[in-house]
């Protein structure tokens, strides 16, 4: 499971970085979105991957920590998703404003090619 998980993060990060470096604003925002997915998965993975264990202490089960998942990364990832989503959405607005003002979707506001 760890290998698949790590590969997924790697593929998302790789494509995200590549798209981020492209000259079109649409590619940049796609790259940022993919990067944010990769980062969210990464934060989640930092709480160790476990199957079938809840992050909330159950009254019936014992209080042995190894029976439970780490709740902190799940709380962190929730915050990171909200913040990342909001700021990326804001970027989308700026991107549209830039398209409207400059008439091109190049990140520099002008096309270098003839």
């Amino acid at each position: 499971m760890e290998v698949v998980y790590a590969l997924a993060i790697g593929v998302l990060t790789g494509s995200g970085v590549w798209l981020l470096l492209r000259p079109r604003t649409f590619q940049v925002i796609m790259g940022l979105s993919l990067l944010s997915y990769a980062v969210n998965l990464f934060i989640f993975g930092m709480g160790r991957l476990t199957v079938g264990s809840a992050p909330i202490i159950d009254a019936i089960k014992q209080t042995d920590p190894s029976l439970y998942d780490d709740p902190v990364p799940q709380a962190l990832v929730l915050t990171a998703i909200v913040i990342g989503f909001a700021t990326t959405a804001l970027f989308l607005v700026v991107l549209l404003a830039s398209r409207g003002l400059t008439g091109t979707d190049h990140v520099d506001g002008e096309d270098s090619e003839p």
Partner: protein
Amino acid sequence: MSNWLQHLPIFPVVIPLVAGAAMLLFADARRTERTVIALFATLANLAAAAALVYMASEGMPEVWPGGIAVYLLGGWQAPFGIVLVVDRLAAVMLMLNAVLALTSLVYALARWKRMGPHFQSLFQFLVMGINGAFLTGDLFNLFVFVEVLLAASYGLVLHGLGEPRVKAGLHYIAVNLAGSFVFLIGVSLIYGVSGTLNMADLAARVPALDDGDRILFETGAAILGVAFLLKAGAWPLNFWLSSAYSAAAPPVAAVFSIMTKVGIYALLRLGSLLSDSSAAGAPAPFNDGWLFGIGLATLALGAAGMLSAQQPQRLAAYCVIASSGTLLAALGLGGAGMKSAALFYLVSSVLATGAFFMLSEMIERTERFGENVLAITFESFGLEDPLDPSLPDDVVGTVIPAAMAFLGLSFIACALLVTGLPPLSGFVAKFMILSASLGTAPLETLPISVWMLWAAILGSSLTAVIALGKMGGRLFWSSEDIVTPRLHLIEAAPVAVLLLLSVALAVGAGPAADYLVLAGHSLSSPQTYIEAVLGSALSPPPSTGIEGNWGN
């Protein structure tokens, strides 16, 4: 009374938050209400910061023993809950931010607040984010506050719109979004290894890590350091800075001049806490050698940029980069007394660049209308040409006489501050840095890096003299078609206040330096900070009413 004072550390976060939210309830047209709320909140913020500065200097030992206040949010004990920590360093930074916020707000009231929606609310949220970043003692909470200040700054950098702003804002937002992801990776990696997000707890736990975990921790710290350096505007991560700062509305750019210092503050704080985590010192980006090289490169870029700048505001943006470079290089060199000298320079340079940004816009008005960015903004918001004498004057406040004389004198004062020439505080600050660098070793065995720092600081100051002299001559002496601008009292006063504060900082350099020396000492001995945070208990005992319900 003392119970009430216990809650003082949360005030710099709560006041701007409540004020910013309250202003959203008023429609954009109800300017008076918004202005009153904004002014009141900013003044209250300044009062709270001043009180914190006093309390952190052990002014009231019965409330805050040792001058360090730990505020437990929600009453949770330190490593489990989020804490806000106020010590001398944090209090000074809060005070600086409050002064800068008040002056830029007053400047913006003259004209700029009307050039886009929700300026006042965004401004308050920016102040809240910056204050929170200085206060927090928790890594993830630091991320959240940095995001709050960035989200507000995304809105503010576009304030006034126009093509140059949107273009620069696009780059600014993209770079900082990517930077935030880097920040998150670093924080989560550190959590995955050490199992804590509390900075003091982290410093206590890191020495116990085994070798395998140690490498992962260093990697996480390095990634986190890259994010801090990006915020600090360090080379080679600062190419977004000059265009974003020079395109932003001047009062916004003035507040932005403390934003780069948030990155420096984070580096300083975490570096100090992690410094005795291993025999080799702090992890890579907080390590002295790295910071020194990066600082020199940043300083060189800032100096070169100053020479190439054509508009005053772009020149001010490069001054921000140069001040970041000086700080990073000075902190990288290390040595006794260097931290307090660097803090003195930080205070002086933030005041100087803040004044310079506001001044630069007033200077640009001396050029003929329609040749600068300002014109685009006026056009897009349908405001009249403010220099057209046939139109009725709708700007509040009194027009000050001898506008050119005021502009010229202020420009000279800014130039003296930036270049570090006597008699203003810029000179005292640079002198303190250079003299502290000599104290690192006996004179015969001084390492080459000290002389490199001397060459870099003196060389960049000379470059700044040339650049500012050239700019001043071109602006004030050469052109025949110079327009005498109409300045209003509430525009001129903030600049004058910031410059007078620099004068005060130079006159009262002794007491100010004493305070900062103690702040520097507490950075060099992080044990006090760690013990204060981890040993903090609730002053009122927690209510026990809920506890019986657990486990049913």
